[in-house]
């Protein structure tokens, strides 16, 4: 049992149709980070650890290498990383005013791409995803059908990511597959 099978919610399922593809991304580490990011001290030390400035404009994300930081709220960030999550979490947790939680398994991340991607997403989310209001580098917490999601824009191609809670992943994936045929 040295190498137990690692399972993602959808076992990295994918689906393609003319003009649209969706695929579950590989497992990656995720950390929910709480701090007063306005405070220089907190921000500097986090920046040093991550290599990314955590002071983000609301509803945006930044990527550097295999690390991304998403703005979730004034004092909340979400980090995607392939680094040692346990080590990072314990390092941050004990800093004054900071909280860090390993949420690597909390959710599934789906990549949606192809010319029909916008129409597929618009079928489930009331949020306006027109490039003029939601461009590459933007993210938002909204809903898709009945699921709460973190939606981010990754390419004008277009390419989007939907992060959804583990137990809603199958529902969202099936929803996407159904509407992809209709748009």
């Amino acid at each position, binding site marked *: 049992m040295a190498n*137990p099978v690692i399972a993602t919610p959808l076992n990295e399922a994918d689906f393609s149709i003319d003009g649209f593809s969706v695929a579950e991304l590989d497992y990656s580490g995720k950390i929910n980070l709480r701090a007063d990011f306005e405070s220089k001290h907190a921000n500097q030390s986090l920046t040093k650890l991550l290599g990314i400035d955590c002071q983000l404009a609301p509803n945006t994300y930044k990527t550097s290498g295999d690390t991304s930081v998403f703005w979730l709220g004034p004092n909340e960030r979400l980090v995607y990383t392939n680094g040692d999550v346990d080590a990072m979490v314990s390092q941050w947790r004990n800093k004054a005013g900071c909280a860090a*939680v390993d949420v690597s398994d909390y959710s599934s991340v789906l990549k949606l791409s192809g010319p029909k991607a916008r129409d597929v997403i618009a*079928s489930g989310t009331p949020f306006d995803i*027109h490039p003029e209001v939601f461009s590459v580098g933007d993210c938002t917490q909204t809903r898709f*059908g009945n699921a709460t999601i973190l939606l981010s824009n990754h390419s004008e191609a277009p390419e989007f990511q939907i992060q959804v809670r583990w*137990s809603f992943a199958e529902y969202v994936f099936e929803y996407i597959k159904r509407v992809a045929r*209709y748009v």
Partner: protein
Amino acid sequence: MSQSQRLPDELPVGNSIDRGAPLTFTFDGRQYTGYQGDTLASALLANGVRLLGRSFKYHRPRGLIAAGSEEPNALVQLETGAYTEPNTRATSIELYDGLVAKSQNRWPTLGFDVGAVNSMVARFLPAGFYYKTFMWPASMWMTYEKFIRKAAGLGVSPVDDDPDVYHSTYAHCDVLVIGGGPAGIAAATAAANGSARVLLVDENNQLGGALLGTSDNAASLAYRDKALQALKQNNNVKILSRTTVTGYYDYNYLTAIEKVTDHLGPGNGGDAPRQRFWKIRAKQVVIAAGSIERPLVFADNDRPGVMLANAVATYINRYGVLPGNDVVVFTNNDSAYQVALDAASVGATVTVVDTRKNISAEFKASLQQQSIRLFEGHAISSVRGAKGIESVRIMGLSDDGESLHGQAWEIVCTCVATSGGWTPSCHMFSQSGGKLKYEESIAGFIPDTTRAKKSCPNLSAGSCNGVFTTSECVEQGADAGLKAAAAAGKPATSTDVAAFAVNETAQGAIAPLWLVPTVHPVGEGNSKHFHDFQNDVTAADIQLAAREGFVSVEHLKRYTTTGMATDQGKTSNLNALAIMANIQGVSIPEVGTTTFRPPYTPLTFGAVGGQESRELFIQERKTPMHEWHVASGAVFEDVGDWKRPWYFPQTGEDMHAAVQRETLAVRQSVGMLDASTLGKIDIQGKDAVKLLEMVYTNNWQKLAVGSCRYGLMLNEHGMIFDDGVTTRLGENHYHMTTTTGGAARVMSWLEEWLQTEWPEWEVYCTSVTEQWAVMALNGPNARALLQELTDIDVSNDSFPFMTMREGTVAGVPARIYRISFTGEQSFEINVPARYGKHLIEALAEAGKKHELVPYGTEAMHILRAEKGFIIVGQDTDGTVTPHDMDMDWIVSKTKIEYLGNRSQQRTDTSRDKRPQLIGLLTEDPTVVLPEGAHIVAEVHDQPPMPTIGHVTSSYMSPNAGRSIALALLQDGINRKGDTVSLRLMDGTVLQALVTDTVFVDQEGARVRG
């Protein structure tokens, strides 16, 4: 069958149909031919079919009145079997090959209808008949209803599952243009001449609006095509045809229905959905919805063949169908003159009857050229022909319009084209919250922009705003488009929207005549003056309403049901208001208008539901171990949205047997339960303990790192609202668990208090419910099994009850909580969710030699009830305090402040004899009380009898060897040892002993062992 009324190909009419593409269809079992581009209405008319249905109340023969979606009469049952749809308007059904339709509301046949006897006994079926007759006695309504529904219904609903698929989607735009006529196209063109995102929506299969039905429209259609071409090339513009905006809600949220594949016929749409429901958020709206012609209200104006004048023109010009060879045009305004000319130019014999005198020489000359007879100052006094009009009688009309005089002329005709003026379509403006104003010059209501709702910014343009020439419509549309784009923050530069060249006669001068007199006073004699065709409401009904005091416009509407049919009174409302105004001797605006309500036209529930049907109707949440449960034959229970294993039946076992086996096994060997669905919240920060002290009733200051404690949460009213175990993971770090159903509620509760009351506290809550997959191991063999898989020393000394240890289980990182909901030796193993499947497989494998049994929620419920552990939401219902639950032990006597504390001292919460949780043992140990059974103070033969409590949980307990129950009983704690009576629904009376709530292992030795 030949298309007897189809005009020959040589004539320059019928631009919407393709004569090279004939289509076959069936109406009432007879086969007909039409053309691609026809509507069902135009195709039937082409075949000389005039009788299309029977009316709602009197079962009178009815034919087509309109050519558009305002049609009140021609409702048909479209298609058969699972695809059938009732009450569809023949005017809105695009013809396809193989279409099958049936007339409605007739029995046994359309030609001979038994219900027509209603027409003969009409004097006994006045307005308000149903209300008056069936108001009393109320108990009889259920009996009456069946007959009324059958007699007064319309079509028949399908009984089979809907075989179609539907799509719903959201859309956002800067400018939404409703209506693709000249005004709408101009508005979209102007608005899109900058960077504005424009959505142009039209209900027809092609854009053009009123232009489509006019003669000599080639130039204007060419202009339309050019304009649309430009719009289509603009990436910021989306054009939706076959799409009707049905509702206009607050903050410019509008809904529309797109008929995606309806026009292809059932089952021919491929992967595409049948219909699409659009949920649109628009910064600005331009309403260019056009106007609807009103019928003149004359005696027996509902006979098949009597149509709106513009419908006659549309059938001629657009579809190449002449509704009748002999046409009488009956009008009170100028717009119908072009209809007379159009009809004459394709060979009809036409007579114009105008209620006005002094018709202009210009008009007279043009009529003369086509040999059209003109009767000035005349009106139709009566008609002949029941199932199709055969002739009309006309007489001179008095100057005041109140009476007829002189010689009656009989004119043979098969079609009456009637125009009582034009009603601007203010539905959308009214739905948006705007008020209307009466415009004398057009005899109609138009939007009053000074009384628009600020939160729904919109502009009206074109004939829905009271202008009727194409050039004015285009001008208003372009202006509205520019203004809307600017208001949306995307100003556009002025653009060339040259007027559409069109041969038109606008409404022009109008002399309103709301009710055409006949030789008898209205309401006497046999003839009827209909104003609302679909609900069969006549002018006499309005008079009756007035006599009975229902003069307020809203009362009038409900009393007579005028405007309440599926057509929403599109052709009838103004006539009804005007007739009422006349009766009361007041002006029309003084009567006022009723409120327009969504939907503008009927829409299917399928479309509103969209893709969220069947398995996507509600999400099924599954744990990481779900596959294992399925493979192990679990029967699932819905807990919130979660699918949780209910029990795991073995071959030949029923639910009872399986649950009893599982329940026994947990106390005799070891059981495992998927507890992943319980809510989990990670709490960090130096003020974390302050938060716990506030939200729980007990003390948390002294909880050691690595220890667990049970807590009870109260709401402000002092009532229990959740419970769970919280563990101290580190100095300022806690792991809270909640009930499955309460997970989201508790998270919001914590956030709400932190954000509103204690924002200065340094404490952060993060939901980790789905981060962890959780298996609970319970039973005497639990320790031995677990020890095989973990590097943690799980002996009682080094891992005592109510503590937590971290290590590995089955080779993966885990936190083990030694907490118990069963009263057994228990370990709750938490692993990151990705290892959940691995964990359960490893446990199942290693568990074989320990007699491990997977158990479900039902056994879990019994096990906890055997120990008297409550389930929040089952044994509590939002009205019970900790004291009521006999849980004083968990309420701190030293804490000054915690949520719900003060409410414990309220008069009602601190009074004696509140319902309290107790155990019940039935006299007969084999009888399991029904949950919800009432404990009564005195037993009577019949209810009512005083209830003093009820059963909250009840099971057959294999470990107690008998049935057990928990109940809430008034003053229950003091009544232990008493015997109480329970009266069941079927009258059975059972006796039960009031006991303590713990039925197994009273000392609690097993859980600590």
